[in-house]
């Protein structure tokens, strides 16, 4: 798998710091499962954040090391021996997604028309994570954004303007200018889309849908 569209450094740093809400983290963890290169960058940022600890000033603690040892008790976990990777099952979704909704075959889709189906996975403070299923060659409605949209491809692929996004690729859109993803021919495109504000549609019809489907 050749990934050409990666997580931006600022998002990866905020993920390393543990500063991102669940929906964003879900898209990032799904990408990280598929992208060794971003995992290497994440490790670097964790090290930068750890290095920052050394510069931190020293707060007064009301407990000392002995108190903590008393709380911890004598329990020490044995050195973990990683179980062999069981490859007998071929999953489409990486584990962060499977933990939430099972694998692709388990999804109960809602039809939105135009060859597009969706499944809302998670909502918190206006941040919505949903799976989108776009039939081969079908196109999503042209839309702009009030906020940010992360689209992580897990199966198939889509074109947007002159760019192609396939399994593993993540599209990060944070601008207002409208765009229109079109699924590649051949197999359906399945992606995880996370947004923090309702999309802005250009046409009247999708605006009617918008209320019904909370997009």
């Amino acid at each position: 798998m050749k990934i050409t569209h990666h997580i931006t450094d600022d998002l990866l740093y905020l993920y390393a710091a543990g500063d991102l809400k669940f929906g964003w983290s879900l898209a990032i963890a799904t990408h990280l499962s598929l992208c060794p290169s971003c995992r290497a960058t994440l490790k670097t940022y964790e090290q930068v954040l750890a290095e920052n600890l050394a510069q931190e000033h020293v707060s007064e603690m009301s407990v000392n090391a002995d108190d903590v040892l008393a709380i911890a008790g004598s329990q020490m976990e044995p050195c973990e021996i990683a179980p062999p990777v069981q490859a007998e099952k071929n999953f489409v979704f990486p584990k962060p997604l499977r933990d939430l909704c099972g694998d692709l075959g388990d999804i109960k889709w809602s039809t939105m028309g135009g060859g597009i189906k969706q499944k809302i996975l998670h909502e918190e403070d206006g941040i919505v994570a949903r799976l989108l299923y776009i039939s081969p060659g079908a196109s999503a409605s042209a839309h702009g954004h009030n906020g940010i949209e992360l689209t992580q491809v897990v199966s198939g692929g889509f074109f947007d303007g002159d760019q192609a996004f396939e399994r593993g690729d993540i599209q990060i859109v944070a601008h207002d200018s409208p765009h229109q993803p079109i699924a590649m021919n051949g197999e359906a495109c399945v992606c995880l889309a996370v947004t923090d504000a309702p999309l802005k549609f250009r046409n009247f019809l999708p605006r009617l849908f918008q209320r019904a489907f909370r997009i």
Partner: protein
Amino acid sequence: HLQESLPGDWSAELVLVGRQQDKAAFSKLFAHFAPRIKSTMLRYGLKNELAEEVAQETFVLVWRKASQFDPEKAMASTWIFTLARNKKIDLLRKQGRPEADVNDPAFEQEAEQTPDQILTTLQRAKAIKAAMEKLPEQQRIVLQKSYFADETQSEIAASLKAPLGTVKSRLRLALEKLRTILDADLGEGSI
């Protein structure tokens, strides 16, 4: 394997805790890291008791999990930082943070690296430390402060609703600069 170490590297102490349940080494780690973890949590906007709880619970985990620490794979400071970060998330969020799992059959393994692409943990740590020191002060501060650190409490409350909408361009600039320095020191594409 620990003949060489960085100043401020605590791997030797952490290994002693993991292999020999060494309480003196544990106390040294606690004295250094716990108050600093607490400070970081205070800057994240946590209340005093919660900041202290993160620091304390992190060290309960340090004691219990120390045998899993591998100095070939991580620096002690990074290992302890990730425990503290995850503890903070556990205490603040009803749902944990999704993470990639190396034992997931759908996990994409790294490609085989050539011997000269392989940097030891220590070499990388040295390069990162050096790159941080080369950053212009303003940019280093951006990386050192937590994301919300320079905002007032009410701004924090407001921005928490849509934190990404307020991603600072300063953070992006600081990271670009860091990447440029690391690329020059370690070779293109090494981070």
